[in-house]
């Protein structure tokens, strides 16, 4: 008998158990870490056809998001501005700059600039910008600090749990309506006071505007 199974095979069941356990743990950890939108979506930063910088236009020039994304308060969809919007200024500013050649061509011919879309919900999800923007939810909650980005990247996971976290407790994120596009705005400079104000003022706004806490499936899957 002993000639068939050498001595080390006594430890085989233990080794299989440990090895199997480690592999299973690694696979579960890998799926948990990598198979969620926090990994698959966040950080997507495509190369855009024109080197447009939000940091230059919003942070430096102080432009409001709605100058360009003008439909965001009225419709479910937040439009990307047409080339003629850019030409309002760039018919004088950097008039002959090669970086803007595509914009000038697009404004002249009407052929759109092929911007690459970054944020995109699956088609089975119903999303609406106007509802959020008119209910005191700022762009920064879902898009991150766009005003500091030279090239826009996907900053938030926009997964179902991300949406639900806020829908269950809008008071934690809500702010006055005239501060929606002021991405740096806080209730107070002091973080402790700000957190406290967010609670008390947030709950007051939620009550005053009768903001609903929407977590039934048909709110977003219709």
């Amino acid at each position, binding site marked *: 008998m002993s000639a068939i199974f050498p001595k080390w095979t006594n430890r085989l069941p233990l080794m299989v158990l440990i090895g199997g356990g480690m592999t299973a743990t690694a696979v579960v950890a890998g799926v948990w870490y990598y198979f969620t939108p926090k*990994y698959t979506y966040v950080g997507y930063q*495509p190369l855009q056809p024109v080197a447009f910088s939000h940091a230059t236009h919003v942070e430096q020039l102080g432009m409001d998001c709605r100058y360009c994304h003008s439909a965001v308060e009225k419709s479910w969809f937040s439009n990307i501005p047409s080339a003629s919007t850019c030409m309002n200024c760039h018919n004088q500013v950097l008039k002959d700059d090669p970086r803007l050649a595509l914009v000038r061509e697009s404004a002249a011919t009407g052929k759109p600039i092929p911007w690459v879309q970054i944020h995109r919900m699956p*088609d089975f999800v119903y999303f609406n910008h106007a509802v959020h923007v008119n209910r005191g939810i700022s762009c920064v909650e879902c898009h991150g600090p766009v005003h500091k980005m030279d090239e826009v990247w996907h900053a938030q996971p926009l997964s179902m749990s991300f949406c639900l976290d806020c829908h269950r407790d809008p008071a934690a994120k809500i702010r006055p309506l005239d501060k929606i596009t002021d991405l740096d705005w806080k209730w107070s400079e002091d973080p402790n006071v700000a957190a406290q104000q967010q609670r008390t003022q947030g709950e007051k706004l939620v009550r005053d505007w009768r903001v609903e806490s929407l977590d039934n499936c048909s709110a977003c899957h219709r």
Partner: protein
Amino acid sequence: MRVFLLVFGVGVVLVMLIAGKRGDLSRRSPIEIFPDMDRQLKLRPQTPNSFFPNGLSSQLPPPGTVAQTGPMRVAGREVYPHQDDPVNTGRLPGTTNFVELNPLPVTAQLLARGRERYTIYCAPCHGATGDGNGITKKIGAMAVVASLHDKRIVELPDGDIFNTITHGKNLMGAYGPQIPIEDRWAIVAYVRALQLSRLGSVEDLPADLRAKLK
């Protein structure tokens, strides 16, 4: 066991090296793990589309199309977008003359709206006070910007300013596509308020406030 541990360790390190960590910036498009119904056969705005000859999903309305909407209520009247009405055109019906006065009733609410919209759409060039020293002029990027306190512009009828917002003028682009009609009139009202703020004199103040000034 040693071989297994080695392979396991190398495997984990390899995956971590290749896949990186959460939130790394990447040019690769997002991964859809179970793309069951993520992309359906429906048109989304502002996407390419090979069905139409010009390749756009958001088609422009053919020339002469009239938007179908409800009427806008102005001072007890109903105005539809296709009507030749001062509210829509800034001109007296049937003529090319501009209306002298804002057809919308000027209320505190309208002025507040006008102020907000002016700050969004006009302030980058004309400045918060309308003196033409917006940020684009300040950094020297833009040479010509009109001062709204110019005597000529102060004397323009309201309808002309409305027309300038809608269709643009010389070097200024058109803002009709971005700004709905009510908001354009609100901006006109606010521009008038800005101009008044410079034209006012001590005589405009009520007597008690005038006394306080002295």
